[in-house]
């Protein structure tokens, strides 16, 4: 984008809105919430967000559904045995890479 001043205006709006959305609730909610429903809701939210973000998006993350499936299964198995985040993430990537190599070799 050539117009630098206009770019900075857009950047300010974009970053400003994004920051306010994050900051306001975190700064304003200092009190402990006592309501059981709200508490339970907030307890479940992270897992629900992660679930919705992972499936089905994970199957489109590598450009090939079969290699993604290999990575996904690897991740599920390692996560079941409670390996660390880094181990699971890297092994899933390695599995995808390996599956990709196999497919290239066979095809």
């Amino acid at each position, binding site marked *: 984008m050539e117009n630098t001043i206009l770019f900075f205006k857009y*950047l300010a709006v974009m970053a400003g809105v994004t920051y306010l959305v994050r900051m306001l609730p975190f700064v304003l909610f200092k009190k402990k919430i006592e309501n059981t*429903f709200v508490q339970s809701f907030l307890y479940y939210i992270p897992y629900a967000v992660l679930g919705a*973000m992972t499936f089905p998006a994970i199957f489109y993350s590598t450009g090939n559904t079969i290699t993604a499936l290999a990575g996904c299964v690897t991740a599920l198995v390692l996560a079941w045995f409670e390996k660390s985040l880094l181990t699971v993430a890297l092994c899933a990537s390695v599995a995808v890479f390996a599956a990709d190599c196999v497919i290239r070799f066979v095809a």
Partner: protein
Amino acid sequence: MHFQLQKAFVIRKAGILCKSLYLRLKIRFQFSLLDTYRIYDILRGMESKNVTLHSYKEGLKDGVPIGLGYLSVSFAFGIFATGSGLKIWQALLISMTNLTSAGQLAGVPIIVQSLPFVEIALTQLIINLRYSLMSISLSQKADSTITRLDRFLISFFMTDEIFAVSSAKEGMVGRRYMYGLAVMPYIGWSLGTLLGAAAGNILPEPVTNALGIAIYGMFIAIIIPAAKKSRSVLGVVIVSCAMSVLFRFVPVLNKVSGGFVIIICAVAASALFAWLKPVKTTNSGASAGDGAQSGQNKVGAKPAAGANRSAGSEE
């Protein structure tokens, strides 16, 4: 004679000075700055009956997989941004000030086409609204070491992954852990954007493809252990995933934008289980899982401060 006495006096005095300096240094090294902070944090935590044992170093370590995942995602964003007509420094600045994948991806076309400011503001608001939920959720898990000023800073780094990792921690989380956790993701996100924008096609395709799954692998590593411990969490995840799949494939529903889908699925699944399987906790995280696991949801029962403390210090 007089002169020699004076000399001896000076030497003695210098010796005393050196010794005291040495002692001071020794003390300084024994209790290095880091330890002092740690002890201070633990004491402050104890004061409020919430012992925080998650350190800066632990946060830094937990941030590594997030940073690696971001490196590949932001790499793709960098390629996309310069491909759309932004300059390298513009792509980098967007990443450094926004730190949000979906929002940035939606924002770039609006900037390039110079659409009205209202449009970019609304788009960011809708796509990033989920951060509000996360902020409220994490505000319940922040211990007393996190001051108001810290909240202004930490909230800048509230991404899906940082939120997920910190809220999966047992007990409360403190400021040092949160700052540690933010470092690697921020570096990864900025560096990835710069690399992607500057030299999009340096990495071979199989490598970028393989890195694409890293972030989801990390999500799975967070979800599965929690779902193993608690049937309710498992239920929430299954419902949320099933809804997300529906939104992808059912004809009318698949028109809904990605940011909205996550909000709808997460809110619906969490509300359903908050209604069916309420969990009462004062120390969100640790005891909630236990309550759901044993099938006895702690409705209305407030654990004593002592029990609360031991739950926090177990891990």
